[in-house]
């Protein structure tokens, strides 16, 4: 008899424990669901607050001037392309097309120069031994942290002496000399993670180091190089201080300066022109980002980045 009562005790205790465990599980599930809902709510709320200004910008660029400061909504009541048409003309003898072309003329050589020089330098750091290597590599880190503000004035004086003011050279040349330490650093990190077996094999097959670089290393570096080019494109597109200091004639203005000029010269109530040109100014960067976002996110996670 005692055995049976003991067994039933054990049994009821087991059933209680099971019920307790189930209840616990239900509570946990409910908690997990509430916490998931909270997370989505926060993310969605923050996302809306963050992106709405940009969405509003696009909508507002199609509004009439009277509506911009009266309607917080996205959809214009009387859509008009007046802002784009008049903004494109600008108050200068040139259209915005000219300024986009200037931006392109700055970006293209600068990006190509960056890609070539940084690849060479990163290859040198990652695959060769030479005197002062440690010191030189520390200088890369030092440049990474060095505030530009301290070298800007002598650089200006230097370019002035060289007669480069009001040309694109001050914007091109420092980058084409692997001056953007961040890219060098990123490529060196990338190269160090790749074993050099393939390069050894190429060497044995009679390639010299330049051929190895061009036919073996560059293809392997391709994803990192794409990141480099994309970042350089975006930064140059957004760069304002560089052109502000070095470019003085309007016919050489890139879009960033042209936009500032149109704020200064447009009459006080022609808001939609400025907003329309702002939309055009950010479009290339956004388009590139959405086409190649994988490379951006990888680039930042790999090297850490400003911005």
């Amino acid at each position: 008899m005692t055995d049976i009562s003991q067994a039933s005790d054990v049994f009821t205790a087991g059933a209680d424990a099971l019920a307790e465990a189930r209840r616990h599980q239900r509570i946990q599930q409910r908690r997990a669901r509430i916490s998931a809902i909270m997370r989505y709510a926060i993310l969605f709320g923050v996302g809306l607050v963050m992106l709405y200004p940009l969405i509003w910008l696009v909508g507002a660029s199609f509004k009439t001037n009277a509506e911009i400061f009266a309607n917080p909504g996205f959809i214009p009541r009387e859509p008009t392309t007046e802002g784009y048409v008049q903004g494109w003309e600008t108050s200068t003898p040139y259209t915005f097309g000219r300024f986009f072309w200037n931006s392109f003329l700055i970006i293209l050589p600068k990006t190509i120069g960056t890609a070539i020089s940084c690849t060479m330098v990163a290859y040198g750091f990652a695959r060769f031994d030479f005197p002062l290597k440690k010191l030189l590599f520390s200088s890369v880190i030092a440049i990474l942290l060095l505030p530009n503000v301290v070298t800007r004035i002598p650089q200006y004086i230097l370019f002035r002496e060289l007669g480069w003011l009001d040309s694109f050279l001050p914007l091109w040349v420092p980058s084409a000399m692997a001056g953007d330490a961040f890219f060098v650093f990123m490529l060196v990190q990338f190269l160090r993670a790749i074993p050099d077996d393939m390069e050894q094999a190429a060497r044995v097959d009679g390639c010299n180091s330049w051929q190895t670089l061009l036919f073996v290393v560059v293809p392997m570096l391709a994803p990192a190089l794409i990141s480099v080019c994309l970042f350089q494109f975006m930064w140059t597109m957004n760069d304002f201080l560089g052109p502000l200091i070095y470019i003085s004639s309007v016919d050489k203005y890139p879009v960033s300066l042209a936009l500032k000029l149109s704020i200064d010269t447009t009459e006080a109530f022609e808001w939609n022109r400025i907003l329309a040109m702002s939309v055009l100014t950010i479009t290339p960067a956004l388009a590139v980002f959405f086409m190649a976002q994988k490379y951006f996110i990888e680039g930042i996670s790999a090297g850490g980045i400003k911005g």
Partner: protein
Amino acid sequence: MTRKRALGLIYLSPYIIGLMAFTAIPFIASFYLSFTDYNLMRSPKWTGLENYIKLFTSDRTFRRSLSVTLLYVFLTVPLKLAFALFIAYILNYKLRCINLFRTAFYVPSILGGSIAIAVLWRYIFATEGLVNMVLAWFGIEPVNWFGDPTNALFTITLLRCWQFGSAMVIFLAALQSIDKSLYEAAAIDGASKLRSFVFITIPLITPVIFFNLIMQMVQAFQEFNGPYIITQGGPLKSTYLLPLYIYDEAFKRFDMGYASAIAWVLFLIIMALTLVAFWSSKKWVFYAGDKRS
């Protein structure tokens, strides 16, 4: 071997020339210029410590600008990092559409320093702009975002905090690399979410916090586009950050010597704070083994 040694230096040659011409020599030259009077017309005239004495004794603009800059940096950096970490923490969970959210939060950083964004800021924070229109729905009186000296700096700070995306992506990568079993062990021991965040998450991501802190600080000290476009340093110089002052002295008044002295003061402040961060990092940054760095 000797051939190989020379080869390495040949590959580095563009960098070495660039380092000399555009960084090392300008760096020294700027130090020299800070002790001179130089307006580009006549050759630099040595004036000893005069620029620095003037800066710290009689230049009220400098004093104002310096305090505004420090305030801006101490507001922007912690706010931006805390927000970036908060969002990264929420994203680091098995959520659907995590990539979508990550992309959405990163978009403002992409547009970063673009003039168009500063222009947008001018419009949405205008007295009759979007922000005040939305506030009116909640019955809040319109705020004078740019006209009031106390608000103006805060509005510029918001612009930078809005661009928390890149710091967030770095935090998220660090959070994702944390071993999940640590949290499970802590949960079994009865630790709450908050406790495991403070005692597991934070210590493990200190290297990334440190990295973000340095990068954001160096960058914040050099903020130029935002105040230049949005407020032109006003009202009452309440957003007149040191880079704006340096720009005006150097490229508007062409007082290169004086501008160099300001630049050097700014540089030394950044250096000092970076060194303090590095020195203190031995106490609070945790590098676990050899897997993480």
